[in-house]
């Protein structure tokens, strides 16, 4: 019952801050409920899929998501995710905890930084070859954008995939970094496209986790239901409140959680 409420909060916070449900689910399960981190990762993967699919229904209608770009980069993330899920067997749990803490801090920093709003007018050769340039609708009409540094973006995506397979989170922050900073995609497009990819990436590693027995039904069902309900409420609330202040408070909180995870990891408390 508490788990259900907790997951609801996790989904709510995840969708309000744009970090995704998994990031909140893992510390909640491990630090508060004392669940083994491997079960927590399995549950977090489910949370990632649930938030991604839940939110995507809203975005596709607006036509912002760049499906071609998402599909192309999914080659990198799915391969990475499978590698990550395989690596997870051989990685000691305390190392996973330390890595998770570091990724958390990084994600918190990423949500606070300046966002790329400008659309590039000149793309690289590869971007034309792969038909990755696109456009999206705004209030002032359709904006066209072009891409560059596709190689760099593709490599960062592979890393993002490995991390998401290893830690069970969507690693949306890394995905946005690859698209925003390296490939110079406008923020709106990169956020929605990354959301589209998170579901597919998480599904690729979730199968491995499921077959390995990392997903427990007793933990799974409250997490799925809680996160879905939370994400739904979050998307409704988001229209009414200003998430910027909330985001800052949340980021400070998450840094503390991250430090706790790293500390426990070093102390071998998992």
């Amino acid at each position, binding site marked *: 019952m508490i788990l259900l409420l907790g997951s609801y909060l996790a989904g709510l916070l995840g969708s309000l801050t744009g970090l995704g449900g998994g990031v909140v689910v893992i510390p909640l399960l491990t630090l508060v409920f004392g*669940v*083994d981190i491997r079960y927590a990762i399995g549950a977090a993967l489910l949370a990632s899929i649930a938030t991604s699919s839940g939110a*995507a229904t809203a975005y596709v*209608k607006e036509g912002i998501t760049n499906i071609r770009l998402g599909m192309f980069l999914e080659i990198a993330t799915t391969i990475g995710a*499978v590698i990550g899920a395989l690596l997870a067997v051989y990685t000691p749990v305390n190392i996973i905890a330390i890595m998770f803490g570091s990724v958390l801090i990084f994600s918190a920093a990423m949500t606070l930084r300046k966002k790329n709003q400008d659309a590039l007018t000149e793309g690289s050769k590869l971007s034309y070859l792969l038909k990755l340039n696109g456009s999206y609708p705004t209030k002032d009409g359709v904006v066209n954008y072009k891409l560059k540094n596709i190689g760099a973006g593709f490599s960062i995506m592979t890393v993002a995939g490995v991390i998401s397979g290893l830690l069970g989170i969507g690693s949306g922050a890394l995905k946005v970094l690859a698209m925003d900073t390296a490939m110079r995609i406008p923020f709106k497009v990169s956020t929605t496209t990354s959301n589209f990819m998170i579901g597919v990436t998480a*599904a690729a590693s979730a199968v491995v986790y499921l077959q390995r*027995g990392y997903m*427990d*039904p007793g933990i799974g*069902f409250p997490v799925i239901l809680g996160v879905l309900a939370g994400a739904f409420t979050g998307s409704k609330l988001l229209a009414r409140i200003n998430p910027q202040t909330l985001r800052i408070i949340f980021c400070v909180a998450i840094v503390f959680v991250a430090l706790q995870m790293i500390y426990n990891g070093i102390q071998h408390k998992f």
Partner: protein
Amino acid sequence: MKHIFSALWGDKDVELVVGQLLRYGVVTASVVALTGGIMYLLLHGSGPVPQYGNFIGEGAGYTTFNGIFKGALALNATEVIQLGVLILIATPILRVIFSLLAFILEKDKLYIFITLIVLCVIMTSIFGGLKV
């Protein structure tokens, strides 16, 4: 310019269908998980909380497709929950398959190829015997 626009519109119709698909998938998964969850609580709710602090892993009944389907048909609570989990995992994969169909309709050979690679990676992880 005109044919670009018509291609875009085709894309959008498929996208709407995909959006619906995602919603139905998520709703079905949560309903199935909820049903299983209620059954689970009726059975185990009064008992002590299982020791999740010790990692033991799950038996074959929860981790193989056959085990899950058989158990769910027999209305075992835990397998019904795992069936919900399966549906949830299947939704994004179905989305990739739908995108593949969309690219086939558009005769976009490059992206048919790219989507196939993605599908192959996912299928390898499902059937590739990665159970280490």
